[in-house]
C-alpha cells in the first residue's frame, strides 16, 4: 500500500465544510447540486402537488396528454404526472438508508482492518474479496431471490453490496492515518483501540468518506431503480420510477411520457449526484488525482492500485 493515497485524502479537521462550499462555487459543483436538488425536491414535495391519486383509473390506457392528464395515461389509464410526482420518495429513502448502512459497515470494517492489522485485517479483507466477487446487482438479486423484495431486505442488500468496496477505500486511507503522531500519542496514553479509531482515526477520514458517500448514493439509486425495473424492487401498485419505465415500455409508440419522464428524472439524479461528488473530489484531492480516484472507484478498482502502478 502506498502512503500517497492516504495523504492526498486527508484534510485538516472541520475543513470538510470548506471543501463542500468550495465545490459548490465551481461550475461543476453548482450544476451537480442544482440537478440533484431539483430531483430530490420533486421526489420529496411532488406527492403534495399530485393532481390525482397515483392508483386512480382516469382515462384510456396510454392516452395522449390532454388538459386533464398533462402527461397522458399509463398502461392502465392512470395519471402519469401524479405517478411521476409520487414515485420518487420511496426510492430515495431506501437508497439513502442502504447507502448509510453500507458506509457505516464499510467504514467500521475498513478502519478496524487498517488499525488492528494482523489477523483481523486478513480476515476482514478475505470477506471483502468474497463479497466483491459478485457484481453488485447480482448480489442484491441473490439476496432477494428467495425471501422476496421486502423493503427492509432491500436496505440490507444494498448496504451489504456497498460495504466491501467502502471497506477497501477506507482501509487504505486509514492505514496512513493510523501511523500519524497524534494517533500514536493517544495510544501511548493507554486509550482503548475502539476509542482511538472512533475519535482519532475516523474524523481524519472525512474527505474519502464524503466522496464515498456521494458515489455510493449514486450506485444505490442505479441498483434500486434497476431492480425495480426488472421487477424485484419496490412493488406495485404504488408508483415508482424504475417500475413505471418497465410497465409502460409496451406503449412507447402511443404515449412515451410514462417511460420518458421517470427515465429523465433518474438520469438527472444520478448524473447530478455524480457531478457533485466529482466536484468535491476535485476540490479535496486536486483535479488529476480526483479523475483517477473517481474513475477507478467507479469501476471497483482497489483504490491504491492505480496510483501504485503509475
Amino acid at each position, binding site marked *: 500500500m502506498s502512503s500517497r493515497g492516504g495523504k492526498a485524502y486527508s484534510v485538516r479537521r472541520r475543513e470538510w465544510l470548506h471543501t463542500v462550499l468550495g465545490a459548490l462555487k465551481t461550475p461543476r459543483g453548482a450544476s451537480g447540486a442544482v440537478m440533484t436538488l431539483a430531483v430530490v425536491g420533486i421526489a420529496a414535495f411532488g406527492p403534495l402537488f399530485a393532481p390525482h391519486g397515483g392508483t386512480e383509473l382516469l382515462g384510456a390506457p396510454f392516452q395522449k396528454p390532454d388538459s386533464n392528464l398533462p402527461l397522458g395515461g399509463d398502461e392502465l389509464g392512470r395519471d402519469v404526472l401524479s405517478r411521476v410526482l409520487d414515485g420518487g420518495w420511496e426510492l430515495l429513502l431506501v437508497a439513502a438508508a442502504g447507502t448509510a448502512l453500507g458506509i457505516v459497515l464499510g467504514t467500521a470494517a475498513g478502519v478496524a482492518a487498517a488499525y488492528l492489522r494482523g489477523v483481523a485485517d486478513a480476515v476482514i479483507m478475505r470477506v471483502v474479496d468474497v463479497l466483491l466477487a459478485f457484481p453488485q446487482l447480482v448480489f442484491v438479486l441473490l439476496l432477494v431471490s428467495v425471501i422476496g423484495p421486502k423493503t427492509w431486505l432491500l436496505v440490507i442488500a444494498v448496504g451489504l453490496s456497498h460495504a466491501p468496496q467502502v471497506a477497501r477505500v477506507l482501509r487504505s486511507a486509514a492505514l496512513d492515518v493510523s501511523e500519524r503522531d497524534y494517533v500514536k500519542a493517544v495510544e501511548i496514553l493507554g486509550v482503548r483501540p475502539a476509542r482511538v479509531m472512533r475519535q482519532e482515526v475516523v474524523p481524519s477520514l472525512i474527505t474519502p468518506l464524503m466522496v464515498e458517500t456521494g458515489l455510493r448514493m449514486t450506485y444505490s439509486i442505479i441498483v434500486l431503480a434497476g431492480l425495480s425495473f426488472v421487477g424485484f424492487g419496490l412493488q406495485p401498485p404504488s408508483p415508482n420510477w424504475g417500475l413505471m419505465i418497465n410497465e409502460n415500455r409496451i406503449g*412507447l409508440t402511443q404515449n412515451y411520457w410514462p417511460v420518458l419522464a421517470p427515465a429523465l428524472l433518474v438520469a438527472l439524479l444520478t448524473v447530478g449526484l455524480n457531478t457533485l461528488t466529482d466536484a468535491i473530489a476535485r476540490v479535496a484531492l486536486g483535479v488529476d488525482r480526483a479523475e483517477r480516484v473517481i474513475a477507478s472507484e467507479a469501476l471497483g478498482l482497489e483504490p491504491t492500485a492505480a496510483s501504485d502502478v503509475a
Partner: protein
Amino acid sequence: MWRRVALSVLTLFVVSIVVFSATQVLPGNAAYAVLGHSATPQAVQALEKQMGLDRPAVKQYWSWFSGLFEGHLGKSLVNGESVASLIGPRLENSAFLVAVAGLVGTLLGVLLGLWAALRRDKPVDHVLSVTLLALTSLPEFVVGIVLVLVFAAVLFHLLPAVSVISPGQAPWQALKLLILPAATLVVVTVPYLFRMVRAATIEALESEYVEMARLNGLSPFRVLVRHALPNAIAPTVQVIGLNFLYLAGGIVVVEFVFAYPGIGQGLVDAVSDRDIPMIQFSVLALAAFYVFMNIVTDVISLVATPRRLFR
C-alpha cells in the same frame, strides 16, 4: 503471483458456499418459496425430496458442489430440463455480447482518452470531457430505453426494439439485433475508460522522465511512443479489465431491456420463477467470470508496468 491464484480459487469456493446458503439453506424453507405458501404439504414434501432438502445442509452442499465438477448442474424446477442445456446457449450469447461491447467500448474509450490527453485544455478536450462527464453514471436501463425511444420506437424505426435470438441461432448470425444492447453497454462504460486513459496519459506526459526526454531533444512522437505511453499502459489495462468485469453485472439489466437471451436475462427469469438451481448456477458463473477476469487483469498490468520489470 501463485498466491493470488490460490486465493482466488479459495474465494470462488467460499462464493459457492454463499450462493448455496443464500438460496437453499438460510431462509427457512426453499420449497415453500418455490411453491408459494398455499402449497399442500404433500407437494412441499415431494419437492423437498427432489431438491434434497430433507438432508443435512452440508451434505446438500457437497452433492451440489461435487455435481458442478461432474457436469451435473441439476434440473430446472420450471420445466425439468437440465440446467446445463438451458444455460449453455445463454452463456454463448452473453459472451458474444460482452466481447463485442467490451472491444468496441475499449477501443473508443482508449482512443478518445488519448486524443483528449494529447490536446489537453484545447476545445476537443473540453468538449469530450464535458460530454462524457454528462454520460457518466447513467443507469443502463435509462440508456437502453432512450436508445429504443430514439432508434426503434418513436423518432426513427431503424433497429429492432427487442433482440430476441431464436433458439439454435448463433448471435453472430443476427448482428442487427446486437446493435442496441451493445451500444447501451458501450455508452455506459466509455466515460470511465476515457477518464482513466486521459488521466493516466496526462500523468505520464507530465512526469520528469518525459520532461527529460523532451529536453534531450527527442521528437514529440518519439517521446510519446517510447517514454510516455508505456507508463500509461498498466493503468489502462487495469481499467480495460475492470470494464469487462463491470459488463458481467451490466448485462443483467441490458439483456432484460432487450429480451436478449443471455445469462443475465436468464437470471432475472429464474429469480421471478424462483427456479433455484438456475439461480445458483447463473450467479456462480457470473462470479467465476468476475474472479477470473480479476486475475487476468492483475497479471497483465503487472507484466505491463515498466518500473516493475526492473526491480
